[in-house]
């Protein structure tokens, strides 16, 4: 399950938490807590959410549209008559699935291409670098829109929607992983231990995956967290532009915000504010973790235990 892999992936973080001090520790821990809450909401959505994401009513009849927050509907109901709180919680599941699909796909493809390109060099390397640079410079949202059109024609169900959003995001991230891994491989390639491996007679594949890959993936966790944050934003933006997942297939925060646009003008705030805050907190959590890891990895930015300035 995704929960297990997420937990295993987080184990090394304990070291960073110990290493950090003061404000930096505060930022890292806050980030981890926020991410933890989102992951928990995603895993236990069926238990936590009071209603289904596409449920329009219960035994006592329909919920009604645009109902203000009440004991039965803590966060009110949407213009479509859904329960806002339930869609909020189910939305976490969609967001986490898209992050996992998108980031895993782009890491696999990006790292493979980066390894090949950096290690083999030659014309393949040059072509890939130019293509990656061109794609990197392009507005990522437009790229995601184009990809979403290709994959789903714009409308989709749960899995096709998640896959479409995941792949759209992948298209944006591949160049980033590609660049990082390639640069590292080019650097590592000239190290003495790679040369000695070649002398001993190791195959190219072995050198690439064992020697170069192991030593070129140090920076990946940083990019991973920052990309996960961007993935949530891209998913929401696609949803906001009407390229999201159908409301009956899954809950998606960006779609809910799109439907809430006209509510705002008539003063109905709960349909937009709650899903919006969900996006902000998720991205905030991921970014705080990423930033803190980045600072801790860089001795110049790492805060030291109090040595009074001046």
């Amino acid at each position, binding site marked *: 399950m995704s929960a297990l892999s997420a937990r295993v992936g987080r184990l090394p973080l304990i070291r960073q938490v110990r290493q950090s001090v*003061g*404000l930096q520790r*505060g*930022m890292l821990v806050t980030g981890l807590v926020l991410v933890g809450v989102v992951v928990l909401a995603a895993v236990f959505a069926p238990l936590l959410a009071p209603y289904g994401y596409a449920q329009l009513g219960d035994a006592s009849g329909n919920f009604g549209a645009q109902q203000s927050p009440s004991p039965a509907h803590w966060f009110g109901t949407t213009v479509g008559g859904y329960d806002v709180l339930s869609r909020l919680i189910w939305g976490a599941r969609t967001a986490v699935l898209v992050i996992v699909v998108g980031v895993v796909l782009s890491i696999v493809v990006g790292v493979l291409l980066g390894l090949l390109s950096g290690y083999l060099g030659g014309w393949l390397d040059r072509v890939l670098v*130019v*293509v990656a*640079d*061109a*794609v990197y*410079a*392009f*507005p*990522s*949202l*437009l790229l995601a*829109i*184009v*990809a979403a*059109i*290709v*994959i789903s*024609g*714009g409308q989709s169900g749960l899995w096709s929607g998640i896959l479409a959003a995941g792949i759209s995001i992948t298209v944006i991230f591949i160049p980033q992983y590609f660049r990082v891994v390639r640069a590292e491989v080019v650097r590592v390639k000239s190290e003495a231990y790679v040369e000695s491996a070649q002398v001993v007679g190791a195959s190219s594949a072995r050198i690439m995956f064992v020697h170069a890959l192991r030593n070129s993936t140090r920076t990946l966790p940083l990019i991973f967290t920052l990309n996960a*944050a961007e993935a949530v*934003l891209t998913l*929401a*933006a696609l949803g*906001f*532009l*009407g*390229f999201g997942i159908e409301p009956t297939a899954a809950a998606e925060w*960006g779609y809910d*915000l799109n439907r*809430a*646009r006209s509510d*705002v*003008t*008539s*003063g109905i*705030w709960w349909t*937009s*504010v709650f899903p*919006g805050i969900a*996006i*902000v*907190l998720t*991205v*905030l959590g991921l*970014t*705080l973790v990423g*930033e803190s890891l980045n600072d801790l990895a860089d001795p*110049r*930015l790492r*805060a030291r235990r109090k040595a009074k*300035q001046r």
Partner: protein
Amino acid sequence: MKGLWRYVLVRFLLIFPTIFILVSLVFLFMRVTGDPITAALGGKLPPDQLQELIHQAGYDRPLWIQYFEYLGQVFTGNFGTTLTGNREPVVDVLLRYGGATLELAVYALIVALLVGIPLGMLAAKLRDRWGDAALRVFAILCYATPVFFAGLVLKLVFSVWLQVLPPSGRASPRGVIALDRVDGATGIYLIDAIRSGNPALVGDVLSHAVLPAIALGLLTGGIFLRLVRTNVISTLGTGYVDAARSRGVSEFRLTTKHAYRPALVPIITVIGLQVAMLLGGAVLTETTFEWRGLGYELAEFLAARDFVAVQGIVALLAVIVALTNFVVDLIAAAIDPRVRY
């Protein structure tokens, strides 16, 4: 100077493969899955009429023939004709609405610089204290808040609850009529309003611009804040700043003059990178505020499933991004010799 000219030439030649790759990618992506006519009109017309239209437009020919034809068209500045709406060339759409997007992007950039630079210096000065932490969290919040959500909240607070600013549009309906009458209208409303010589009109245009500019500007402002902070921190630690301090230069002057100047160079490069982000953000901001620019039109075409128009606008934006990056790289190279090849 010889090195610089060589760089200019190489960098200029690099524009072409970039544009070529992006335009090809967009074409392949959009065409692999089907033809745009079925996407736009499928289900609305009987199948034989649909086939007729597809045949007329030439979408039933082999893909590679269409591809070369498309490349030829792009090379001559023809980005296709929209299928829906007025059935006009995409280039006309750009000319009509490009000004609005440019105007919004410039406002947003101004907001971003006004927010990012002073706050970034302040954060650097307060390094590792609570003020610094608060500013950094603010910067991350700017990044973490989707522009459309920021836009909706701003609208809710300032237009609906406080009712001090208009909720949407680029000008009031009467303002739009007055602006259209201005001789030689540029489409950039602020310029047109100033030329009309009517202060009320200028106020109208500016009041409509405030919320969209803040929504989009904060996104970039957060990035500037972080950048200025990191750079000022590193320059504050250099020898010449210590030397100036020992000569008795005030701390305020040290931060705002000595450490700040060198920290500006990376900002210019980042402004270039932000052009792509501003364009993406403009699509969302314009949709939120019904700001009728290129992004708003793009969203409309997306909703209408007019993928010829989408393909055209996206390809055109690719060209604009490639050209802007070229200009920015030149500025960066002129300032910092280390950038040159």
